[in-house]
């Protein structure tokens, strides 16, 4: 629990604090916080079968499929729908070691990932 005097109420104090924020002593910078906020808000961390870490939306469920779709920019999460085929749960996920190329697409690294993961290509019909 924090002492009351540590709670910052008005922007004046925030301003003083931001000026004295030092780097490298474990204090989180505003910019970092903004990034955390934009990339993690309403999301969950998850682990997959091989204990790899990823970030999924809060609506993701155990058993959902993490996949790479040819031509997409980010890792996707698919869920089986009743009656076969798939629904897209998320098209904007993060997964450790499954990173798109620096151009932000999977296409350039698609073949390499297929080989590394030793999986075969599939066709997904998404509703």
């Amino acid at each position, binding site marked *: 629990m924090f002492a009351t005097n540590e709670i910052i109420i008005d922007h004046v104090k925030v301003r003083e604090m931001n000026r004295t924020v030092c780097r490298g002593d474990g204090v989180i910078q505003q910019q970092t916080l903004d990034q955390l906020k934009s990339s993690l808000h309403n999301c969950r961390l998850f682990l997959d079968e091989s204990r790899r870490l990823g970030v999924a939306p809060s609506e*993701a469920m155990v058993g959902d499929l993490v996949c790479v779709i040819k031509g997409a920019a980010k890792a996707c999460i698919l869920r089986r729908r009743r009656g076969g085929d798939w629904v897209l749960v998320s098209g904007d996920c993060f997964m450790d070691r499954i990173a798109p190329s620096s151009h932000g697409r999977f296409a350039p690294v698609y073949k390499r990932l297929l080989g590394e993961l030793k999986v075969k290509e599939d066709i997904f019909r998404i509703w």
Partner: protein
Amino acid sequence: MDASSPHSGHQSVVLKKYPYRQLEYDEFRLVEIQPADDDSMAVKCLIQHLPRLSSGSVDYIALSYTWGDLALLKQVAIDTSYYLEVSANCYAALRRFRSKEKTVLVWIDAMCINQEDVEERTKQVRKMGQIYTSASQVLVYLGDEADDSGRIFEHIQGVCSRRPVNGYPTARLRNLDLGRHCDEGLIKIAWAIMRRPWFSRVWVLQEVFLGVKGKADVVVVCGPHSASLKDLANCCEVLCSEVGEKMEYVSEIPYVLTIAAGGTPRGLHDILRRTRHANATDPRDKFLGLLAMVDDERVSNIAGYHMNTTTVYTQVGLFLLQSVQLELLQSIRHPHSRYPNLASWMPDWSCTEDSGQSQEIQHAGHDCDYRPTLQVRDCCRSSSHSSSSDHEYHPVLKVKGFKVSRIESLGEAFNFLGDREECLVALKSLSESVNRPLTPHLPGGFTPDSRHISKAEGETG
């Protein structure tokens, strides 16, 4: 209808609702605000039909404002025997721009478009580009003076009066000047201004874009004060950066000013992503309200107000699939539930939370284009209770890809939107998850509410 006369002096006149005459091809309407010596007098207008718009042919002001609360309606007298109901904020804008001596010619959406005519709305919305670029001036009505808002306009005026004759050689010098002589009070005022509803609406982005593009001066009016929008946006940005705060509300305005200056390609997907945080009363406006900003003429025929939201978003999704292919998928972070018939791979543009970052999308070359196949399914059969007359169809996307793995365990959902304590909980759970300790010092950006302060005091005492 027994409407009491809003026009003082004619107590016994019963006004009738203004009967719009249909617009002929290329015709448009302008509102002529009648002069009044006394500010307290009721607003009286005339509605004119003009044959066609071309730059410089008519001197009129295009207004940019927000409708505000639609439960608060006020009557504007039209001519001698009619009235139109407009929102209180629209009424306030008309009164603010009324002159003491002469009539003022304005284009204002609530009155110049017959809001009850769906076909006319669609047609006029496509002409928004013409309407705002042909105006002699685009005026922004921010609302009345409040929270000492006048001080920021005086500050800008002061800086502008000292401005070098040829303008500032660099943006840094200008920002230095804008940040000079500011105090905490001024920063708070800048914050309050940025939080006015005008800054968060989707329509205003296009209006600003067109105003700047038409080389008209976009001037912001707040009570009796005014300033150029560029100066106000710069000033608020400088003041807020003093406290290390991100300008959440104004962030789209500098973007719009930049793209209006030219040089940046303005694809539909980029613009939809950048304006995702902006609010619209009608979810279809998240697309229809920014048509004129997109530099691809094909977009204007994609959709209209005769379609429901699902159909509009489906049409947009199909268009994007052709222009950016599967990059489209990254605009869906969360599954959408608002429109059950919208395909899961189509972004719901009304969901403001969906895209975390509004960063630029990096486009890869054409070397790795992959075109997926589409299968069109009729979904009218599955939703037999659909009250909509629209023929909704459900395109099924067929793509190539591979499975990486399955989700085996999930952590708690992070919530960074709450107060400071909730954010700390989120950060703590993050640090525990990755096994890296974080100290609990949070810099600004999250103000705790009084609830938590009293709780903390209670615990220490």
